[in-house]
């Protein structure tokens, strides 16, 4: 019976190609938008450079400087006054302004010969509220620090080595966001599930189905299966588009599919809860926005979010947003595809995701039955 209902529902979905295509392509489209945000493998920061003495040596050094892995470099340009540099920042032509003081090179000579401990004070200026400034500042600071070390022969007493987790070394900044976007591909199914199930009530189809031998579980399963399949297609399509744009994400695909399936079921259950309260597709659409926003912005799907701990269970801290199944979906995918975790590495996320999915499903089916289908 479930198969028959699912087959017919799928047929109906395929006969609404615009809605189907929008469901499939929204998340992959977001990948393209993110690609536009992070256009190249190398991040380049624009630096406005002011030196009253026209210090060419430092400027050239900074211009040629790059991180060890060649992923970041500085794009320097002269400004004739600090005011001109500030204007460049205001107009987005520079992320940071560096003001090299008078006598800077002489002060380096004095440091080298031991006559003084520090160079003349270099001034950095920029919009401190911008994350771009913070990163540009660190890069600019590093380049000047290395120039000073080279120029004075004073090697920093701080020795360090960077060790990347998983395959994060091979990844670009955009790859960090792809697991979240893959979960987003599932989150937007919320509209489809809730509108489909409310549509059954609105069109009267549910009344006709209730007259037949089909049970509540068979009806809900039959109408959910096509949406789950569409969700999984959109999920892997998002990954495919990311790969086409050069993403190096890889990991255990079987576990990735398992996480996707569990998350889709949780989203489907949420759709059932929404449609239990909605008597029409339009009211379902409006109501679905609330859980959609929660899932999108509080589970880290669209942007990483800080954990707010509620309580500790042994040595595991349980956060507020851990109540959302999508939080565990995003975390599990990040661990699988970025940090190269195996089954044991995502066991906590899998347990939480499974428990929440079962809970949401039980609640969703029960609520839909009570409010839309129960008879005396």
């Amino acid at each position, binding site marked *: *019976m479930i198969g*028959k*209902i699912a087959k*017919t529902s799928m*047929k*109906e979905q395929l*006969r*609404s190609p615009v809605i189907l295509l929008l469901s499939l392509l929204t998340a992959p489209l977001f990948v393209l938008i993110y690609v536009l945000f992070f256009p190249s493998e190398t991040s380049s920061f624009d630096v406005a450079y002011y030196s009253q003495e026209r210090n060419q040596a430092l400027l050239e050094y900074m211009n040629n400087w790059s991180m060890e892995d060649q992923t970041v470099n500085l794009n320097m340009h002269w400004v004739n006054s600090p005011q001109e540099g500030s204007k460049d920042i205001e107009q987005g032509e520079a992320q940071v302004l560096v003001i090299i003081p008078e006598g800077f090179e002489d002060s380096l000579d004095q440091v080298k010969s031991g006559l003084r401990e520090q160079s003349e004070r270099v001034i950095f200026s920029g919009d401190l509220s911008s994350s771009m400034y913070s990163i540009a500042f660190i890069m600019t600071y590093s380049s000047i620090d290395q120039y000073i070390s080279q120029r004075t022969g004073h090697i920093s007493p701080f020795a360090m080595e960077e060790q990347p987790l998983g395959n994060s070394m091979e990844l670009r900044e955009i790859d960090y966001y792809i697991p979240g976007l893959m979960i987003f591909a599932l989150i937007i199914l919320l509209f489809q599930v809730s509108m489909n199930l409310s549509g059954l009530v609105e*069109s*009267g*189809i549910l*009344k*006709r*189905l*209730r*007259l*037949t*031998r*089909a049970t509540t579980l068979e009806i809900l399963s039959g109408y959910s299966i096509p949406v789950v399949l569409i969700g999984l297609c959109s999920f892997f399509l998002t990954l495919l588009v990311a790969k086409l744009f050069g993403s190096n994400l890889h990991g255990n695909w079987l576990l990735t599919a398992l996480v996707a399936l569990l998350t889709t079921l949780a989203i489907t259950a949420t759709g059932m809860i929404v449609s239990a309260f909605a008597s029409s597709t339009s009211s379902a659409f409006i109501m679905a926005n609330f859980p959609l926003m929660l899932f999108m912005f509080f589970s880290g799907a669209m942007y990483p979010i800080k954990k707010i701990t509620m309580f500790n269970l042994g040595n595991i801290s349980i956060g507020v947003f851990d109540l959302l199944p999508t939080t565990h979906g995003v975390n599990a995918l990040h661990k699988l595809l970025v940090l190269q975790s195996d089954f044991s590495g995502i066991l906590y996320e899998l347990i939480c995701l499974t428990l929440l999915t079962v809970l949401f499903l039980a609640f969703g089916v029960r609520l839909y039955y009570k409010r839309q289908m*129960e*008879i*005396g």
Partner: protein
Amino acid sequence: MKEPVLTVKDLYKSYGRVEALKGISYSLKEHEILAVLGPNGAGKTTEINCLCGIIPFDSAQLYYRNELGRLPKEKLGLCPQELIIWKKLSLIEQLIYMGNLYEVPKNISSLRAEELLVNLGLIDKRRALAGSLSGGMKRRLNVALSLMHDPEILILDEPEAGLDPQSRILLRNFIKIQAKKRSVILTTHNMDEAERLADRLILIDHGEIIEEGSPSYMKERYSCSNLEEVFIHLTGRSLRD
């Protein structure tokens, strides 16, 4: 003497303080067409929905062939007042799907669907999507969907609403033919339809049966020339909406 297929005893249903049905009792015989008449809000659709298990009733004794209990789903075929069709499915697809939902074997389902489409004048549209049909065709499809599992009792809730005269004639003939195979309950406001089709009438008002009998008995008893006069005589002229 025809055997009663369905017996309803003391059917009560309230919506909060409003008593929609106040102890309805009647029986439906084999191959009988029973018309349930009444003004708007009299309780006709509520009564049907209670019989079919779509809404819960407060209390009642329902007998299917003298057996007390809930009426078996597969024995009832409801054609609801509203059009309930799958707009994105073709006519043949949704009829077969309906058969599937009642677990009718596929070969029987196909034959029955074709037969219904022929009898209801829809065979030329068998491959068309239901959403593209005219209002009258949709209503006839609505009727066909209620018959795919070959029920013993066909319940038609306002089947002629919105039909043109040609379609009405076709549907009346179709209902008469159906009565040779099964019993029919018909709710309607159309007195002409009731007079032409029904073997027996039940007149409901304010949730109670106020009169019962054949069309000729009713006309004779109240000395009226047609059923509309009987209807107005028994239910009054005031609006009920």
